[in-house]
């Protein structure tokens, strides 16, 4: 039967969601599941392997707007930092 997905090791770059530039795409690589509020975000689809687009930052650089599975989500910076990512090259 289908088993737990394999969680890949965090990549060497160790970028997180707050390091992206507007319109950058990335794939979530690893998550600090113990940080507060993270489980809630995972429930909305922010799990390993999910593709996510950084849309823009609000006034003053925080919170941040992302696009995940068709939903625009607003995350505060400290939450975004709990998600390590692998950027997807623009043309790829």
């Amino acid at each position, binding site marked *: *039967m*289908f*088993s*737990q*997905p394999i*969680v890949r090791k965090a990549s060497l770059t160790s970028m997180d969601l707050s390091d992206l530039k507007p319109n950058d795409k990335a794939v979530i690589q690893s*998550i600090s*599941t*113990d940080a*507060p*509020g*993270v*489980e*809630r*975000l*995972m*429930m*909305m*689809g922010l*799990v*390993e*392997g*999910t593709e996510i687009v950084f849309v*823009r*930052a*609000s*006034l*003053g*650089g*925080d*919170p941040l*707007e992302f696009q995940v*599975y*068709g*939903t*625009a*989500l*607003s*995350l*505060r910076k400290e*939450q975004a930092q709990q998600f390590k990512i692998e950027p997807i090259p623009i043309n790829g």
Partner: protein
Amino acid sequence: MASSSEVYVSAENLTVIRRAERVIAVVGNPNTGKSTVFNRLTGMRQKVANYPGVTVEKRVGRATIGDSAFDLIDLPGIYGLSPYSTDERIAVDVLLGRILGTPELEGILAVVDATRLYQGLYLVQQLSEMGYPMIIALTMTDMAHLEGMRIDIEGLSKRLGGIPIFPVVATRGSGFSELKNAISGMFEAVPSESEPPVFWPDLRHAAEELRKRIGESAAAFQVVELERAIIDGDPEIVESLRVEAGDSSLDYLLAVRRDLCGDTPPLAAEARYRYTWIRERLSDLQRQISPLPRLGRAAINWFNQPWPSALSFIFSMGVVFQAVFAWAAPLMGMIDGATSSLGNWIGGVLPPGILSSFLVDGIVAGVGSVVIFLPQILILFLFIILMEDTGYLARAAFLMDRAMRSFGLSGQSVVPLLSSFACAVPAIMATRVIPNRRDRIATILAAPFMTCSARLPVYALLIAAFVPSTSFGPLNLQGLVLFGLYLLGIAGGVGTALLLKRSVLRGSNPIFMLALPEFRFPDLRSVILKLFDRARIFLRRAGTIIFAVAVVVWALAYFPRSASIEDGRIAARGEAALSLSGQALQVELDRVDNEAAAEHLAQSLLGRAGQAIEPVFVPLGWDWRVSAAVIAGFPAREVVVAVLGTIYAVGGQADEVSLAERLQSVTWPDGRPIYSLPMVLGLLVFYAWCLQCAATLAVIGRETNSWRWPVIAWTYMTILGYVGALTIYQIGTA
């Protein structure tokens, strides 16, 4: 789980089947069009009540399809079965059949937004595992089409183990005849044929393992309850497990959970599993072609940039205020006019006396003081609902989150707080959009500080009468004082929020997560329904209390009635009629009446209360008359102007100029003016900070669902106002 509710009545060879209506829950993520589907299926036949003990609304409606009827419950939006707010908890509790007075569910109508398919299917997986008969209404198919999204619906239904899926456009009603047919046929399938699919078998096995280890006493628990206990550690289920099956059952629970999830938090494990399942099994059913060109999209995208967004926010709040003042003021004037002409008419028909006074000053004035709020509430709510339904409210929260965080609040507080500059009542009702309870209460307690429109008559009277209109260059002192009062209100509110968030409501908001809905044109029908709802809630819950308080204040001002004052008045009127005529007679009669009214008030319970409490207010420079007027203004601060008119014998409906002149001339026994500048400034500060509004108190009570918060708010704000007035008067007269 679904129990049959059919009653067979057999009469000879004829069998009449009479069934109680089947109960179907409408469940989905927030903002998927759930309420629109619900409204369309039930029409206007809805009942709105509250779930016991909370302010979450319970919306039940009857859908008649062919010749069968179904009872639909519109549940608050959820992302999954692990609740994070009161609304979400209620939805989950109803699904688990744990709410008293809510009928047991028999089926589920899942509402899934086609543009946000994955999040919808996450919930669908969990709902399916609960075992109810279920169908899916796939909404927003028009939007998905525009976005270039193509979904293989048949394929999707097959991979979901045969759950039927019906594409609809809820706003236009297309696809609803198929949906209705499916609902009416929902319970006809043979149970064994429609065994609902299980998507995470490992969890099911874990729950069954747990049940086996616990043994007999586990029979009391549904398998989904055990599953939720394993994933969320739901305190209610865990506690009843402990009671029913002993402490050892908790050890089993932990062991089973460890086997399933290892060291990962169970909810994270669940999200990983289910989303990976969706991504890997269903991604080929969703095709993305290039979206249709749409003029609006680029414009909306541009407007969502921070600066355009900030400018449009300022602009739209400006429009809201303009509308509240420009549209509500004339309506309020009309209501005011109507109440006083009704009062005058009754006063003319009935002989003067207790009945007339009770009807005019008690009942009519009391009803008037409730209805007068409606224009503002309706107009403000019209805008708030429009902002909510277009998705703008979430955008405003996103925009202002950073700024509001410096006050210990979050972006979601910004619209309620701004609304309270018009009226705190709808503002407090609008705090329901704030999911975090601590943030919500801090916002509710900050809102009444903002300078609402009811404070303006009091400010206007006192400033015009007592603040000299000297100018400093382009600045006018009267304008400066008014501006200062606005700032005082803001400072009071912000300070209160900060204080609360640093003390009793401490704790950051770890799950500030905001879904930012796409811009949508609002659906007129649901806007109107929601508007009616707000008005009804206000009239029923707050209205009764405001009315009762108004009647009590009338009684305090009326009783005890002194016969000698009345005899004196009649004698004086008779004398005047003998010696005067025409215009002069009318003036004299009014003077006599006003004098008598002032004397009556002086010896009424209210007047006596003012005299009794005078020592408390003397340090603020207030005599008993001011004190009595402030007490009478408790239900509604703007009443204080009319009471001052009566007390100083210029008549309750005197214009502000003659009242102001009269106020300037009243003195203490030693000849000092009572209304000195320090006293007036203090009185203004008192009105900036105190909570003289029964409507606000009633609404705080309703929205926090406790009498404690209104008592705390009133006491706190009254003390603050008192200390403010005291400080200013003492410094000013030192």
